[in-house]
C-alpha cells in the first residue's frame, strides 16, 4: 500500500517541490499538492508543511500562514493523532498556529545560514524518528534566517520532562557544543514534537538530504520512519497508532 502525503502549498512556499520529489520519486509514495485555500486534505495519511517564505515572511515567519483556510483542517488532522511534519517555514507555521510550543528569533549572528549541520536524534517514539536510533547523528542541511528556537524556562522544562525535544544541534560525534548550535537555539533545539507525539517540527531539511548525489541521504530516515509507522507492527508497542 502506498501512503498519500499532502504537501500544503502556501503563497511563498518554496520547498514544496522538493518535498514532493522526495516523497514521490525517492520514497515511491503518493504525493499531492494541497493549495492553502482548499477545504480538505484530500484523505491524506501524512501532512507536510514545507519550507519557504510564506507571505514573504514580512511579518514574523509563519504569522500570516497560520490563518490560511487549510489550517483548521491541519489542526483537526493533528488532533486525530495523525502524523504532521513541519519543515523550516512549516515548523514556524506550526509554532504560530499553536500546534507546537515556543517561537523563533533571528539567528544569533543575524545572518541567513545555509549549510549541512549535524543533528542528534533525541527520541525515537515519534512517527518521524521511529526508524532512527536515539543518539544517531544525521547530517542534514539548514537554510534559514529565523531558526533560533526560543521557549521560556518552564516550557523547555516541560519539553524535557515529556521527552518532546526530538532533534538537537550537535557535533558530528553527537556532542553538545555551543559552536555547533549555529543559530543559537534554546537548549540547542532543532526539532520538537507535541504532547501527542504525532506533530513534529524541525528547522533542518530532511527532504534535501534524501540522495547521496545532493550531499547526504541522512534525511531519508525521517521520511521512511513515517512509512514504517504505518506498516511496522512494532509501532503498536510504542503507541504510535
Amino acid at each position, binding site marked *: 500500500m502506498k501512503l498519500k502525503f499532502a504537501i500544503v502549498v502556501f*503563497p*511563498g512556499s*518554496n*520547498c514544496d*517541490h*522538493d518535498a514532493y*520529489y*522526495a516523497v514521490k*520519486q525517492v520514497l515511491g509514495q503518493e504525493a499531492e499538492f494541497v*493549495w492553502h*485555500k482548499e477545504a480538505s486534505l484530500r484523505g491524506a495519511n501524512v501532512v507536510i508543511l514545507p*519550507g*519557504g*517564505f510564506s*507571505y*514573504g*515572511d*514580512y511579518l514574523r515567519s509563519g504569522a500570516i500562514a497560520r490563518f490560511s483556510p487549510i489550517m483548521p483542517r491541519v489542526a483537526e488532522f493533528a488532533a486525530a493523532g495523525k502524523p504532521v511534519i513541519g519543515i523550516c517555514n512549516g515548523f514556524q507555521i506550526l509554532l504560530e498556529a499553536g500546534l507546537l510550543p515556543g517561537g523563533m528569533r533571528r539567528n544569533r*549572528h*543575524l*545572518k*541567513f*545560514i*545555509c*549549510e549541512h549541520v549535524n543533528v542528534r536524534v533525541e527520541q525515537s517514539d515519534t512517527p518521524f524518528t521511529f526508524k532512527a536510533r536515539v543518539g544517531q547523528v544525521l547530517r542534514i*542541511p539548514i*537554510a534559514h*534566517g529565523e531558526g533560533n528556537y526560543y521557549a521560556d524556562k518552564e516550557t523547555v522544562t516541560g519539553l524535557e520532562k515529556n521527552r518532546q525535544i526530538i532533534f538537537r544541534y550537535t557535533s558530528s560525534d553527537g556532542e553538545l557544543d555551543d*559552536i555547533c548550535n549555529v543559530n543559537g537555539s534554546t537548549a540547542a533545539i532543532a526539532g520538537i514534537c507535541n504532547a501527542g507525539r504525532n506533530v513534529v517540527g524541525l528547522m533542518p*531539511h530532511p*527532504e*534535501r538530504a*534524501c*540522495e547521496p*548525489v*545532493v*550531499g547526504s541521504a541522512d534525511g531519508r530516515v525521517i521520511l521512511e520512519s513515517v512509512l514504517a509507522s504505518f506498516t511496522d507492527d512494532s509501532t503498536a508497542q510504542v503507541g504510535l497508532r
Partner: protein
Amino acid sequence: MIDQDAIEAHGLTADEYRRILDILGREPNLAELGIFSVMWSEHCSYKSSRRHLQRLPTKGARVLQGPGENAGAIDVGDGVAAVFKIESHNHPSFIEPYQGAATGVGGIIRDIFTMGARPIALLDSLRFGLLDDPHTRRLVEGVVAGIAGYGNSIGIPTVGGEIAFDESYAGNPLVNVFCLGVAKTDALIMGRAEGVGNAVYYVGAKTGRDGIHGATMASAEFDENSAEKRPNVQVGDPFMEKLLLEACLEVMQTDALIGIQDMGAAGLTCSTCEMGARGESGIEIDVQHVPQRETGMTPYEIMLSESQERMLFIVRQGREAEVERIFEKWDLHAVRIGQVTGDGLLRVKDRGTIIAEIPNKALVDDGPIYDRPAEEPVDLGVRQDLDLASLCPPPAPIDAFTALLASPQISSKRWVYRQYDHMVRTNTVVPAGMGAGVVRLKGTNRAIAFSVDGNGRYCYLDPYQGAMLAVAESSRNVACSGALPVGATNCLNFGNPERCDIMWQFSRAVDGISEACRALDIPITGGNVSLYNETNGEAIHPTPVLGVVGVIDNADRILGRVFRNEGSIVVLVGESRVEFGGSEYLKVMHQLVRGRPPIVSLARERALQKLVVAAANDAVIESAHDCSEGGLAVALAECCFQSGGLGIDVVLPGQKIEGHPDLGVVATLFGETASQIVVSLSESQADSFCARAATVGVPVLKIGRVEGTRLRIKVDSALVIDVPVIEAEQIWETGLSRHFAHEAA
C-alpha cells in the same frame, strides 16, 4: 513647451532631439520626451555598443534563441532548453547596496521566466574595492544580504559565482547576476504583441514613483552627489515575484498567452514598445487602468516608473477570463490596460485623451547609434612594461604562498555563499564554492554546468587578451566539471564610452570575446552592457564577465575539483610559461598591476577542454581543477582543501629566468599561464590518459601523487613548499571572513 533645459535634463543631445522632431514631424510633449529619453538611453538603446556587439558570434546548432529576446536559449537535449542571461545592477547597488542587488536578482529572474522557463539557478559576479575600507565592507555586506534576501525568499538557489577586490571598483562596485532556467524546447514564449484586438494586460505590483529615470541614471557617471539619487533605486518584493513566477508559469501551460515581457528598465514604456516592435504591431493603453500605489501620478510618471515585479502580457481574444482566474488563484489581479492595434504606434491615453503617440519601431530600432572614437590609452605601454629585476629578491615561496591563500580574492568564499540558499530545489550536485555551478535535470540523466568569470586586471593591461582569457577561463571551469561548453552570455562593464580610451577597451574586448567564442564554439545568446562605471572621472578596470553554460550527458560523470583518493596520480594538463603579468602574486606581494596578461592559444584551449570532458565522460579521471589566480601552487592547494585533509607530493619543472633563478621558482609556483588543468586519476589510468593527450597534441605531465597530509611541492629538486594541509586550509578558510570578524563565524 520643450526647452533646452528639459532636453538636457532628459540626457538627450541636440542631435538626438532633432531626430525626435524628424520622427514625429512635430514637437514632442513632455511625456513623449520622457519616453524617448529612456528608450534612447545608453542602458536601453545600446547606442554606443550596438555597432560592436554585431561582431559577436550568435549562431550555432544548439541555439534556440539568440540575442533580442528577454533571454537566450540553448538546446541541451531530451527536449529541454536551457534559458539563461546575465545582467548588471551596478549603479543601483552602489547607491543602495541591499535593494540594488536584490532588485538585480529580481530583474534577471523575470527575464528567465518570461521566456516560459522555470528558473533553477543563480550565480553572481561581484567586484568591490579593498576590504580595509569600511565603506567597501558595508557595500559587500549589503550586496550579499540583498542577493540572499531575494534569492532565498523566492526559492531559487544561488549556487556559486565569483567575487574580486580592486581599488578601481571602490567607487563603482559591480553586481552582475546570472540566472538559468529550463523549459521544454517547444514551449518557449516570446515577448511580442500580435493580433489586432488582443488584450494588453498588466499584472503584479502597483506602479509607484520609485525608479523613475533609473535607466537614465544607469547611463551617466557618478560624482559626490550620487547619494541624492537614492530615491531612483527601486525596492524589491520577492514574495510578489514568487507569486508572479508561479502564476505566469501556470498561465503559460495554457495557449491563451500570445506574448509576455517584464517591466524592467524603463518600465511600462519599454515593455509596451518592445513587444509592439517585435510583433510589428501597435499598442494602445490607457494609464487610468494602470494600478497605482500613489495618488496624483502623472502619465509621465506612470510610463517611466521602474517599480519592480510587474509584467505586461497579451492574451488571445476570448481567453481573458481563463487567464484572469489563474492570476486570482495566486491573489494577483490582472487588469486589462489596452489592446493590440495594427498601426505600429505606441499610443498612450489618459482617460481617453491621447498623451503620447510614437511609432514603436522609432523607439526600439531607430534610436541613435554611435560610432564613438576609440584610441589606445596613452599609458598602455607603461602598464604593460614589467621590469623583472624590480621583483627581486622575491619573498620566500612559503611566505608568498600563505599571503596568496589569505588574499580575499583567492580564499574561501564560504562567508558569502553560506548566506545564500544554494540547495533549494535539490538539484545542486556540486557544492557552492567549488568552481562551476552544476545542477542536475530531474527526469533526465543530464546535468547543466555554468560559470561566470572575468578578470579586470588582465583587461586593464590588454582588453583583447583579457577578454579572450575570460571566455577561456569560464569555459574551462565548465569543462572541469565534465560538461561540454555549448553557449554563453556576457555582461560588459566599462567606463564612460564618450572617452576614446574606454571605447578602445570596449571594442578590443568585444574582439577578444568574439574570437574566443568562435574558436571554442560557444555562441553568445544575449547579455548586457553596463557603461559609465566611473566616479569622479575614475573608471573601473574594463570588466567583461562571461557566463558559459555546458551540458553533461551523464550526470553520474560529474567531476569535482577535490582530490578523492590517496595514492592517485596528479597530472598537469597544459604547460606553464613565465607569465606574471596582471597576476594575483604581483598584486599581493608587490601591489602592482603591470605587465602583459598570459597569452592564450585558443586551439590549445579547445583541445585541452575536449580532452578533459571526454576523459570525464569515460570515467577516466577522478577530479579536475582549473589553474587561475595564484597559479599552480594555489590550484594544487585548492584540490586538497575540503578533501578531509588529503595531501600531495609533487614536483614541478622550474621556469628559468636568466639571471634571476629565485624568480624562476616564484614564476613556476604563482605564474598564471592559461590553459592548465590539474587532474587526478588512478595509477592504472594514468598512462593511457597521457597517451590520449599526446594524440590530440595536449602536453601533459605526471607531477606526483595524492598522499599524506602535507602539501609538499618541489620545484625541480628543491622542496619549496611543505606545510600541513590543515594549516594552509585554515589560512584559506579565513582570508575573507576575517574582514568581517566583528561577527563570529
